[in-house]
């Protein structure tokens, strides 16, 4: 045994084995052994208060949710073990599965479009000279982030109604035959809700990307231009690579918003018409507060959280590379 792997002390003493411990290798043997240990425990002591809060307010409720998902419980009375029934239901009840499907369609509207349009808007605003116009453009794009989503949802519901602004505009430009009650149209309800998401997320993405562009070394742009790069190639050669971190933040944030969306749907369509705009967030709310099926709601919530993690993880990896 010892002849194969060698005692750990010997390995650590070798400077090449662990570059981090190079200074320690020059120290006498005894202090080197005890110092990290005391530091180790004092480090944990420093972490303890934060970890305590984290455990009480995050880890404990999370563990509870997982636990509830294996019970049949109404939130008040006695709970009965339900085995895997709540989990099976997620995959066997078409409404629950469809709601997850809708959440992914919303990703197009909450993530793909805002990040794409945000890149375009940020590049355009960068070229504007700082002044009244560029400030106004920024403010206008960012305003949806400031407004409460519930208020925005109600306003959008009015705009989408049969005689709302959207249809008035269509009539005014002679597209009478395309007018419809958008939020109760079986084909267009989900995209219509999605557009609200684009409107909300676009400002956030633009402002964040604009801040990112501001940090890119101007010399790079100058060099690109000297090399004869046009606007398009400048965008792909300088702007896009320089925004890697910001893009990861934007994508992560908006994807979570899409997959866990609740307020806009609850206000504008309540999942209708039919089940056309039902999303997991609304399902979880109904299961918990309306039907008092805390177990089933927990299972769907844990499933949703896991799903979010699975989707977000590769994006985070992408951001960390290099």
């Amino acid at each position, binding site marked *: 045994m010892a002849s194969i792997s060698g005692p750990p002390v010997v390995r650590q003493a070798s400077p090449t084995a662990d570059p981090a411990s190079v200074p320690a290798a020059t120290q006498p043997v005894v202090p080197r052994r005890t110092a990290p240990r005391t530091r180790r425990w004092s480090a944990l002591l420093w972490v303890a208060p934060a970890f305590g809060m984290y455990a009480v307010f995050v880890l404990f409720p999370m563990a509870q949710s997982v636990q509830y998902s294996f019970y049949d419980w109404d939130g008040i009375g006695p709970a009965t073990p339900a085995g895997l029934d709540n989990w099976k239901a997620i995959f066997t009840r078409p409404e629950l599965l469809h709601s997850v499907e809708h959440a992914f369609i919303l990703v197009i509207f909450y993530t793909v479009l805002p990040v794409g349009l945000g890149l375009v808007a940020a590049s355009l605003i960068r070229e504007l000279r700082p002044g009244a116009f560029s400030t106004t453009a920024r403010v206008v794009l960012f305003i949806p982030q400031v407004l409460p989503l519930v208020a925005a949802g109600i306003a959008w519901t009015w705009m989408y109604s049969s005689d709302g602004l959207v249809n008035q505009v269509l009539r005014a430009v002679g597209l009478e035959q395309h007018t419809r*009650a958008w939020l109760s149209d079986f084909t267009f309800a989900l995209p219509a809700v999605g557009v609200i998401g684009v409107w909300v997320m676009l400002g956030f993405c633009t402002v964040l990307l604009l801040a990112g562009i501001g940090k890119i070394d101007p010399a790079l742009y100058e060099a690109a231009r000297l090399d004869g790069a046009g606007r398009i190639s400048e965008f792909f050669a300088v702007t896009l690579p320089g925004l890697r971190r910001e893009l990861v933040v934007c994508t992560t944030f908006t994807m979570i918003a899409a997959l866990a969306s609740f307020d806009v749907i609850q206000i504008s369509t309540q999942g209708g018409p039919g089940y056309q705009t039902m999303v997991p967030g609304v399902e979880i709310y109904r299961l918990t507060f309306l039907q008092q099926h805390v177990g089933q709601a927990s299972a769907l919530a844990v499933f949703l959280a896991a799903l979010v993690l699975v989707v977000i993880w590769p994006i985070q990896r992408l951001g960390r590379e290099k």
Partner: protein
Amino acid sequence: MRSLTQYRGIVRVAAIAAAAALLLAACAPGGNSEAGPAPTRQASTGVGSEPVTLRLLVNSGVDVPFYTALGELFHAKYDNVTVKVENQDYATLTTNIAHILAGSNVPDLVRVSQLGNLIEDHLLTGLDPYAKAYGWDQWPQSQFASTRVGPDGKQRGTGSLYAAGAGFGLTGVYYNKALAQRIGMTRPPATVAEFEQLLAKAKDAGLQPIMINGKDGGSVYPLQNLVMSSAGDAQAVQDWNYAKPGASIDNAATVKAATSLQRWGQAGYLPADVNDIDQTRAPAEFVKGNGVFFPSGNWQAPALDKAGAGQFGFFLFPSGETGGPSYAMTAPANLGIPAKSPHADVAAAFLDFVQTNSQARQDTVTLGGLVPAGPSEAAAPTAPEGSAVAATVGSFQELLKSNGLVGFMADATASIHVNSLIPQTQLLLAGKTTPEAFAAKVQSDYERDLGQ
């Protein structure tokens, strides 16, 4: 300086240990609720002479001035009792009621929109002893059916009484008198067939035959009425509402009703954007003259009278055949006495007072927009001749005697309305489901909700 990641192993072990410890400490969730029947109280009819503050928790909005007025009337009669009205908005109260009643700061009377698991969890006081002491058991009993709950805590319409209310909601069909005259309607239709003829006439006259809110469930009212009139009987629906074992609406009557409603949609009797119209827009459109008929409830009547006194009439949904029974959906504005209420006797006295005192009954109509029930010999409150309110009050008294009051299918389970009836009716009206599939799906959702 070493980073924490080097202690990842230790941290991980600590986290897992902490999580496991927390899990073990938690054990099974809930579970301290004892099995067996709810503790029964000694019922006493007096309010005593000690000063008492009776706390009422009701919904925000119309409820507040209404119950405040009732409280003042009660205080005028029993000056040692002060009624304090607190309110929470409907959605908040509905979602929090179980936790409020299980907590330590419990009101003496609470507005109960849905009984849910409140009985199973022993959160409401059984009212049978009070019903006996105050003689409620001598009144027409159909008014109490929806708040009787069986020993299993689920089946309604039988068992002990758990809530009672000052007044009732009632559905029917409003009509615009001027437009109805234009299509030659001289009296309310006696049968569904007659009603359909009127709808066709309205369509031919270029009018919108029916105004209704399909976005949030208004179209479920005519559907339920059609189910009952095509069956010629409301027992099956009532059993279904009350979760009677084996109850089913996956039958010929429902398929026929769904077929009719779908046909109404295709024939243009319903607004083209029916699924987009909500309960605020529908009455507003109806008042503007967009719609000859408006199937809805008596809660709309005071506003309709205000918008145009004497312009709007009300009739009960017609029966399937000439001389057949009429039915209407009804639900009481229930108040329950929390099991932890310190003044249950006074609360029960208040419940008796609001159902029997003539001024309170009048306030129920004028302030609450509801029809009082109570003893059969009690005088009906007055309303101006020819008003929509007067018509709803008259219809209610008639149905109370003929046993034509039926609960809302929407109340059968906590989520049947939002999760099944509304989306399925929308699919039906959009032609995206068949009447047969409609009946089967609503029934299977219902069975799942009840855990059958």
